[in-house]
């Protein structure tokens, strides 16, 4: 168990934590950019978030669809299926079990979305809203939930040994999650002042740290139902943040040209998409 924890920490560091910090570090340089580029950066953030929304939605739905199939393995072959999935199957029985995947998806999505409504209220009480810090915390949280799912996927892959964890794969993940670091500091770039080092470190930990938790679960106690739940919660959270950041962008961004705005969104989506091709597990 301890060696699994150590492996999860290493995987989480390489795949999640370090890339996010690398993306965050140039924040001061970003602040020296002219207004147009700053606006571009913020809409880049939106593009990153939109990609994550699409990605997470697809993962959750694919998992929910596959949940039925996972049940049929137990029926037809002498294979073992994860304990939690088996328990759901036993409780619900043959006729109802296929619905479980979709139910978990809906519950997770609602939990993620409404949970963020609550968390957002708390964050706004504690932070200075003029610096864009509250938005940064929201983005970090949503990205963190996404990275928990990503850690899960990495953990499962490594434990199954199906894909060799090559250096190229790690570099792919690093490039992918580097953009997430840029997304976290996006709202801080045009803020009145930069938050303290402690808070910046905290933002990075919230965005990257959950990768370690996800990797550990993936390595040790994976269940299909749990994966659907993680992805759905993260999708709900990212959806909330997308809506928030988009409304903010449209309200503050009267001066931003549409070319810059949509160019940034497109760049964010494309960078995430292209880098995701390197890490297709």
């Amino acid at each position, binding site marked *: 168990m301890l060696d699994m924890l150590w*492996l999860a920490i*290493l*995987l989480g560091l*390489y795949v999640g934590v*370090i*890339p996010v*910090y*690398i993306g*965050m*570090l*140039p*924040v*001061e*340089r970003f602040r020296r950019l002219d207004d147009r580029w700053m606006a571009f950066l913020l809409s880049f953030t939106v593009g990153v978030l939109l990609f994550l929304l699409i990605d997470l939605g697809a993962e959750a739905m694919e998992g929910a669809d*596959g949940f039925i*199939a*996972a049940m*049929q*393995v137990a029926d*037809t*072959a*002498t*294979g*073992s*299926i994860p304990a939690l999935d088996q328990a759901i199957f036993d409780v619900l029985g043959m006729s109802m079990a296929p619905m479980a995947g979709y139910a978990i998806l809906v519950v997770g999505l609602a939990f993620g979305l409404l949970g963020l409504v609550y968390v957002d209220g708390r964050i706004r009480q504690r932070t200075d809203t003029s610096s864009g810090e509250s938005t940064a915390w929201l983005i970090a949280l949503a990205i963190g939930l996404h990275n928990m799912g990503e850690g899960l996927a990495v953990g*499962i*892959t490594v434990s*199954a*040994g*199906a*894909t*060799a*964890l*090559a*250096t190229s794969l*790690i*570099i792919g993940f*690093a490039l992918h999650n580097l953009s997430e670091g840029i997304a976290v500091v996006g709202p801080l770039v045009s803020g*009145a*002042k*930069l*938050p*303290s*080092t*402690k808070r*910046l*470190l905290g933002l990075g930990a919230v965005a990257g740290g959950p990768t370690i938790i996800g990797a550990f679960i993936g390595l040790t106690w994976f269940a299909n139902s749990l994966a659907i739940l993680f992805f759905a919660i993260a999708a709900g959270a990212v959806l909330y943040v997308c809506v928030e950041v988009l409304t903010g962008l449209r309200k503050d961004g009267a001066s931003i040209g549409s070319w810059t705005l949509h160019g940034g969104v497109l760049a964010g989506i494309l960078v995430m998409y292209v880098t995701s091709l390197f890490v297709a597990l």
Partner: protein
Amino acid sequence: MEERAEERAMAFQGSASTILFVALVLFELLTPSILLDLGTTRSTEAERLGHTGPHDSPEMLCDLPPGNDVRRYELVAQAAEWQIAEGHMISTWTFNGSVPGPTICARVGDTLEVTLTNRLSTIASFHAHGLAFDSDSDGTFLSDSFVAPGGSRTYFFEALPDSVGTWAYHDSVAELDEEPFVKGLMIPESGEGIERGMYGAIIVVDGTEEPVDHEVLLFLGDVGPEVTRKGTFQVINGRAAPLTPEITLVEAERVRFRIINAGPNAAHDFYISGHVLENAHNAEVVNGTTSIEELWSVSLGSLTFGDWLMTAGPAGDYDYSCSVSGHAESGMQGRLTVIEGE
């Protein structure tokens, strides 16, 4: 007040942030290979077959004690990093970690129990040629006789009199795409497991085989670009030239070549320069003399197998290869050296 807040973001400002940035990037790039157990590029020497040193008795692939038995084999379907060509590693699926998997031996009349444990993330199976089995041991998707990830299953076989010879076993369901789980759909047999390395030999003997000095087991196969990520390789025993087996023989030695085309796609035409292969299974007695079919090359379609006898010629360097256009260039060739007797 504002200035102090700016100062407190020190790690993210000025030269400190640049240094940290470079340090983290270097850490990310350089340390994974040290801290994580990654598939490193090992240099593999070519396999040595045939006469590899002095021996008192014939070197047979299957040296079974006399009498019938229940023979049990444990196979584990597992992923492995495999050097398919010089400087090129690929991710393979294997039986017991190597390509090809272990050789399964039987004597006519034996019962075989093969237990397959699946450590892959896809379903896997054991499908045997040449042996007798019930449909629940056929290892196909249609009979549900495959093994889910994490599971295991025992397959039962019998070696009958017409089982004598060289056969292959292989996976027939493994696929990265897990669509086959959906019941009620027509599911084609999958060759992906074979392409990724899940095959091995079954050798059945009945004790009437002509004694030989060596037995050489060769697997021909093709591995496509979706597995190699670098074009199609034509491989022998899982590797492309120059990593194909180096065969050494002593002048006038008798050798039995057991050759398996594991496929999954291409047909091959195997020859050894300067030598003929004898088809001992196709001997005819014509006018009181035994005539044995002699071949300059043997053709093997995908998933066909056989064994041929050969007498090593005069000392010298020879090569073996596939004469199908482009196959030798894609790796399907190797060296055979005949040395003078001691």
